[in-house]
């Protein structure tokens, strides 16, 4: 026993080093584990409160560019409302009585501020100042005034962590606007303004500058949210599919206020999916 103790004391440095290396490796391999994320991520209570305090100062940065983008978005929305009103007036003139048009809203939004954000890692995350107490749950989509931002991954009581579009592990279902062609949006690192739309069918027709929007195939994002615009086609050895280079519409380096999307039908749709699995 004494020999063992002597041995341990003599080589304690090596043991300490080995233990810390082991701990680091466990942290590295468990990074996608939800329970580990709750404790060891920017959404935990301590780091969340530090980021929230700091954002009371940093929240004022980039206000000029954000304001300009909001004004642009406001102008285009006002235009759209005007067009829709005109269309509605025309239709009402043709059909005087409409039968039970359901005007129920499917998606609800929670406003949140970005308190921490990164764009330089291969796996980037965003921290928001809203959590489960504000109705945020993992799996909800996050958008800003320009386009999609990410998906909520961990939700604490007052803060939540979002997997950014700028995360190599994440794919988003997107389509070319006003066409039936669907693809998968994937960010490949380095440039925070550029992502790739993969698995676009070979027969799909597109033009440079075409808008890419969300496909609406999941409960995370409704159809038609801006993602970006087509820059060019990337050459691939696989001839069956295109890969399109997409300029992302959101400025990830200047994220400030975002909206978290709540799908009111989510529980219903999820229960249907579970039923499918059981019958298999």
């Amino acid at each position, binding site marked *: 026993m004494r020999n063992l103790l002597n041995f341990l004391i003599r080589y*304690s*440095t090596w043991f*300490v*080093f080995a233990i*810390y*290396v082991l*701990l*680091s*490796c*466990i*942290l*590295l*391999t*468990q*990074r996608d584990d939800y329970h*580990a994320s709750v404790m*060891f*991520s*920017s959404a*935990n209570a301590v*780091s969340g409160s*530090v*980021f929230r305090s*700091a954002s009371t100062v*940093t929240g004022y940065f980039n206000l000029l560019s954000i304001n300009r983008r909001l004004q642009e978005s406001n102008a285009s929305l006002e235009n759209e409302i005007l067009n829709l009103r005109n269309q509605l007036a025309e239709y009402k003139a043709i059909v005087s009585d409409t039968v039970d048009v359901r005007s129920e809203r499917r998606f609800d939004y929670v406003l949140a501020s970005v308190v*921490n*954000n*990164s*764009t*330089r*890692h*291969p*796996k*980037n*995350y965003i*921290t928001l100042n809203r959590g489960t107490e504000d109705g945020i749950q993992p799996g909800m989509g996050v958008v800003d005034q320009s386009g999609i931002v990410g998906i909520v991954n961990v939700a604490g009581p007052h803060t939540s*962590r979002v997997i950014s579009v700028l995360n190599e592990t994440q794919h988003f279902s997107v389509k070319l606007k006003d066409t039936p062609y669907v693809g998968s949006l994937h960010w490949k*690192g*380095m*440039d925070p303004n550029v992502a790739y739309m993969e698995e676009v069918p070979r027969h799909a027709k597109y033009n440079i500058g075409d808008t890419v929007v969300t496909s609406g195939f999941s409960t995370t994002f409704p159809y038609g949210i801006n993602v970006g615009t087509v820059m060019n086609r990337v050459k691939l050895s696989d001839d069956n599919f295109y890969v399109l280079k997409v300029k992302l519409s959101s400025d990830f380096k200047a994220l400030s206020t975002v909206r978290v999307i709540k799908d009111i039908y989510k529980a219903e749709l999820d229960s249907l999916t579970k039923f499918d699995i059981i019958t298999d």
Partner: protein
Amino acid sequence: MNKNSIILIVLFPVLVLLQVLIFNHIILFNFAVPFIFIYFIIRLPIGLNKNILFTLSFLLGFIVDIFSDTPGVNSLSSLILSAVKTPIFYAYVPRDDKTKFIVPTIESLGWQNYSKYLLTMSAVFCFCCFSIEFFSYASIKNIALLTLGSTIITFCLLYGVDCLLPSGKSAYSS
């Protein structure tokens, strides 16, 4: 408690906060990231008990990891940096009684030796950090670019920090 210990106690939280609140958001030309928090490991006295050195380095990296959402990356890189700190130091400075418990600063080592020590330490940390984070041969170009850019910016930043802080020479060297 000597002057250098007080400086180190203050530096630990200050460097962590500076890193996570400011320097984590700075990326120059898309491939230069400044790592200010490793100054704490660089400034720890040579000859410090290895167990304490490893524990402090791991804790430092671990806290930065939690705030940066990069679990394990900075912890492991800081740990490797602390393990190679003494060999790197003695690669540039002669091993004798004078340097046994020295605090590495510009004043105690001279700007030439300190620059070599600081540059090697910055390069080792940046290489470890990006290699662990990307962890694929496909990203070797990115790793090389990021390591080069970040080493230069980290070196300049840490050299400036060392000039600003009071020297720890009086505490250890004779």
